[in-house]
């Protein structure tokens, strides 16, 4: 009796990270000073960081380069974070995405549920860093 569901979970392709190889991050943020701040901080924490100022640039970069993780703002010109998120998750290769925004109310918006994490912007980047580490390890 009852139904039997067969669910096959296919994980992302195995990726070998060489010991020296740094995890590659992409920061998508329209405000230059903030973008620079994140990039500098994360580079100092031992990540290889690329920068994009809006969704369009981000998609272009993601297609060219294998990123380990994307950190993304929501309100951006040209293509906003939610649209970009949709494009990123529809890529063949699964890349974890952290929504990092000054808005706290988008957390309840189901469009952001497909992101791996939703963090509210803070001048203290410790929370962000620990989330990055957590997500990169599991991948």
């Amino acid at each position, binding site marked *: 009796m009852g139904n039997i569901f067969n669910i096959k979970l296919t994980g992302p392709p195995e990726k070998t990270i060489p010991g020296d190889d740094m995890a590659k991050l992409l920061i998508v943020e329209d405000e230059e*000073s903030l973008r620079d*701040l994140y990039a*500098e*901080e994360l580079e100092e924490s031992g990540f290889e960081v690329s920068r994009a100022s809006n969704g369009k640039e981000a998609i272009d970069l993601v297609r060219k380069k294998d990123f380990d993780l994307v950190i993304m703002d929501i309100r951006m010109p040209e293509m906003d974070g939610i649209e970009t998120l949709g494009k990123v998750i529809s890529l063949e290769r699964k890349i974890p995405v952290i929504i990092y925004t000054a*808005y706290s109310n988008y957390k309840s918006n189901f469009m952001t549920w497909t992101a791996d994490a939703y963090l509210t912007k803070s*001048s*203290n980047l410790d929370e962000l860093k620990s989330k990055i580490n957590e997500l990169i390890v599991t991948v």
Partner: protein
Amino acid sequence: MNRFRGNNANLRKIIYWMIKIFIPNVLLAVYIIGLLMITENLGRTTYIMLIAGMLFYFVTRLYFYYYKIGFFLWNNLKNLRQVVDEFKKGKFVLNETQIKQTDDISNVMKELLTVGKQFDSIVSSQSDELKKYHEIYSHIICSINSYFIVIDSRDRILYANEAFCKKFGIDSKNINGKGLNSIFYFVNTRLKIGISHVLGDHSPDAVVLKNVHLMSINRKSMIADLKISGMTVNGEEQAVIIIDDITDRFSKDYHASILSHLSETMRDEKETDSIFYNILVGVTSGSGLGFNRAMLFIAEDDLLAGRMAVGPDSFEEAIEIWNSLSSSDVDTVTAFPGDIKKGKLLEKVKSFSFSLAKENIFVAAFRDMERIHVRNAQSDQRVDDEIKKLMEVDEFIIMPLISLNRSIGLIVADNRYNMTGISNQSIDLLSVFSFQAAFLIESYLNLVEVKKEMKRLEERQEAIVESEKMAAVGRIASHIAHEIRNPLVTMGGYAKRILKHAAEGEIDAKKVSKSADIILKESERLEKTLSNVMDFTKPSKYIQEFNDINHIIRDTYTLLKNVLFERNLKIRMDLDENLPAVKSDFNQMKQVFLNLFQNAIDATPERGRIEIITGFDDSWVTITVRDSGTGITADNPDIIFEPFFTTKITGVGLGLANVKKIIKDHSGKIKALNRPEGGAEFLIKLPIPAAEQKQKDDEKKLN
């Protein structure tokens, strides 16, 4: 007939008595004396002669006696003949004529007998005819619906027709000589005045009184049209009062007027109780014309509950009502009921309710949708104690209120105070009235329900609007939070970097100054945001003067000329030179156009096109700003006027919100829409002040 008069008659009588008594007696005496003197000795012959003389005397007396009768008839014979002759011709005139002694009396007698016989037959045939007519007339009088009475000048009844006696319950044999006071419970003042007008003032015309309230001694009420006319019989003034009973017609009219009055006023904010009260007053037709008491029960869910009652609480009160009715003019009878009379009965009925699952006579009438006429409540098995206690009478009628083939309630009515039975006629009247009343109540209750539902919807709508407002507040708050958090994060982040570098002892002056620069820039941004918010919320004081909108537009244009040139935008201005002046604040208006133009410039790509058009109609000046830019991406174009809505990288999204606020403060309207050919269009309407106001303001300016 006797023609002998005075001395002549006396002489006649003396002669008659002389002839009748004296002469025969003298003759008899002379004969006897003569006979005795002639004869010397009394022999046989003498006795025979004496006896023969006596016999002669008696015969002569007898003859004279006969002659005496004949004498009178004979005397009048001529007259008698003439009378008979005249009588034959149909005349009764007597002529004095000389008596002819030769006439034979027996012939006259014979003729007289014949005439007498003829006369007899004429009289009897005429009395038959009279009897026939009498019968016909009395039949007519009895069969007419109208009641009529004849009264004398002392208000005593001389005649009353059968219908009247029956209607007012008076024995027709004993009615003669009764006063009006002993027939009517109250003698209506109008009737009194009418009678005195006819009898006292000898008015030749009949007095007609409409809608007079009459009440018999046994409290039978009636509304009647009266016709009072005078006549003179044997020198005595009499008045004929014809009474036309219009109670039924009046009741029907009353019902109809109550119903139409109710249906007309139903849409007004009227209390349910008032509607119910009016309907029951209709059942009692004012007070006392219909039923004495009426009660209304309405079904609610599975309960039958008493809702309203009309009628006196006591006999004294009933008398008082009738008294006032009969003495007052008719207008109080036809007037619509006023305030609800609160009394014991109403209290009792209102506290009376029972389940429809219960088995009693009320429920039976309600369920079967059939009227029930209870004639003897005490012995009626169907009437339970509760109802007996409520009604306190033996006879009452239960009439279901049926609307659209279902019962919605009951009307219960009785004649508690005038102690007369409930007639079939009044039940029929009530039945018709109930049918219409039920329809009215049903539609009224529906109306109430609809109104209630509408109110609920309105409340819900208000709640929705309220929650929408709250959502807007939330949205605005979140925008503000965003505007503040971004610079704060940036500032905090850079400050931390400086601290970190300082802690590590590697202070790079260049890096520090860059961080400090960013911190400074961000703090400036914060300040700007804050002042923008403050600007937006602070109450504005406008200078209100008459401005030419075209002038403001041109002024603003010169400010933006360079930007337009730089971005290679084409601008087209189509300004109506006859544009009326608008009462406005010059600087605030300039701000509006600056914001709008800036918005259009920002949205329009290079080599785009911007159009500014002004125009006016009777009451509005219109300004249209069009661009060939990206248009408004939001689903509802008006959302762009919400504070902190922005699609721009720079700016906090207060520009258009400010525009809207200013326009609103000028009693104007603003609307944003997407043009079908691409780009956005902003339409502003500003009111043109009334001409006299402008004149007044101009005068003020001159002074």
